[in-house]
């Protein structure tokens, strides 16, 4: 093969004494090409690996919004705990109607149309409902054996479920043996005179939700001042 200038452009053959500056250049090109390709492939591989897949990758969840909503929900739970409203909400149960006081949903929980009539309900309403967000409020508790970590849950407010665009925050509240049920979340008396332990079993010795018995069981012995330690879970859906 002859080049335009009449030189031999073929790769050097074994035993050929042409120097690398001449016919060996083809091998050098090949080698450089392979090295360049490897570097490019490495770069592409690293670039692809750097794209961390997160819930926000699809763009449907804004981490900033999620963080803000979570902080608002956390603040509301802490404020409600500070003024005793969180505890009162957990105890605002009408054993006569097997529902939380003022709740009109068939399962005895609050919904969209009838939020709790106390400061916790007001804060949730003004912070979330008025911005077309919905929320649910649940109480997670344990039974008498504290070593049994299989807790159960009672729903207080249910405004919907969502797998995406939601965040759940929690706060722990202690209920005491000497506390009574209250009707304050529906404008009623702050103390109905019904003790928690007595309300849990009602008129008989057995617990039966259908008979209107208080849903949260005692979690400690009767001699303790503690009735139960309840984890309140507030889920915001936006």
């Amino acid at each position, binding site marked *: 093969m002859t*080049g*335009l*200038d009449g030189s031999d452009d073929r790769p050097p053959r074994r035993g050929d004494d042409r120097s690398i500056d001449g016919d060996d*250049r083809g091998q050098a*090109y090949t080698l*450089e*090409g392979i*090295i*360049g390709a490897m*570097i*490019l492939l*490495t*770069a*592409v591989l*690293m*670039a692809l*690996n*750097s*794209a*961390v897949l*997160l819930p*926000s990758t699809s763009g449907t969840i804004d*981490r900033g919004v999620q*963080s803000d909503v*979570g*902080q608002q929900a*956390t603040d509301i*739970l*802490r404020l409600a*705990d*500070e003024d005793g409203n969180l505890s009162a909400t957990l105890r605002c149960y009408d054993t006569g109607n097997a529902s939380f006081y003022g709740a009109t949903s068939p399962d005895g929980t609050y919904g969209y149309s009838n939020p709790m009539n106390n400061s916790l309900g007001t804060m949730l309403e003004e912070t979330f409902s008025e911005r077309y967000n919905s929320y649910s409020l649940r109480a*997670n508790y*344990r039974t008498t054996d*504290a*070593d*049994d*970590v*299989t*807790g159960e849950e009672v729903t207080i407010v249910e405004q919907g479920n969502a797998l995406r665009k939601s965040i759940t925050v*929690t*706060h*722990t*509240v*202690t209920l*005491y043996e*000497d506390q009574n049920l209250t009707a304050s979340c529906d404008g009623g008396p*702050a103390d109905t005179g019904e003790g928690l332990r007595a309300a849990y079993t009602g008129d008989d010795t057995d617990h039966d939700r259908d008979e209107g018995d208080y849903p949260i069981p005692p*979690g*400690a*012995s009767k001699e*303790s*001042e*503690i009735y*139960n*330690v309840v*984890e309140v879970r507030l889920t915001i859906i936006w």
Partner: protein
Amino acid sequence: MIDTQSERGQLILAGAVSFALILIAIALVFSTTLFTASVGSSGTVETVADGTGTEQSVEHTTEGLLERVNQQNDWLLTHDRTFLDRSESSATELENRFDDNLSAYGRQLAASKAETGPTYVNVSRQSFNRGVRIKQDSFSSVPAVAFVNERKLDEFVMIVDVESSTDTAPLEIEISESNGGDSTYVRMEKNGDQLWIDSADSTGDLDMTAPECRIDADDAVVSGTNTVYVDLSNNFAAGNPYDPSDRQACPEQFSDSLDAPYDVAVTNTGSLNTAYEYTVNESGFSLPGTASSTDILWSTDVGIVYETSAVLRESETEVSGYDP
């Protein structure tokens, strides 16, 4: 011409290598940024927030437990005038009861947190600070002595037996900040079946012709005797303290306007038959002549450990069952 083409190939190759190196650099930078912004700190921040929330719950519960354990030695505060039939608990008994309750709470809290996620929580009592509850448990006039000097004071309640009192002279109490700051004066006197109460920041402003409140005596606290319950620490008085609607904001100034520690003195003994009770944060001082004392747990230091895979928080905080 041919040499130029050959060198261009090398130039393109060198350019490609440079481009690849730049891509690697960008990939590294973006990788770090994405991790920092989206993954690195957010989980830790949320965990720390949960840790502070847990500490708030522990402090709140510790306060509640102290109040309830101390109630064994409460009488007037719980509107209970049957205290003479009740047995008092020693400080050691109160401490043991508190420890048992805190242990029960700690177990339940740990179980609750363990269920939510891989979180370890431990609550432990470090130390106690004892105080005393001082009481005059029979109705008589209040001696003209200093109740408490340079100490924290809380749950200062009085029950005035209006029926057996005479309306000849008012009872007057001065509560002042121990550092020489502001004072509040409270004056009470019988008027028919009522107890009239007025408070002001100087004696000259006390006006019993138009007092802050006029409370009808009731037999709610002591059956068969018309009494008025006056809670100086929570600023309310009532004939029937069990009925929140019967409570009047009276006196208005003590706990809202003054900062502990206090000096408290009876500046005019008056002629009201009164039983009283209050708590202070120390013990071992001489009592007013007709008073006696019993132990209370004023405060406790509680240690809290909150640990997740990302965060370890250890804190120790002093929690008081009283808030002077």
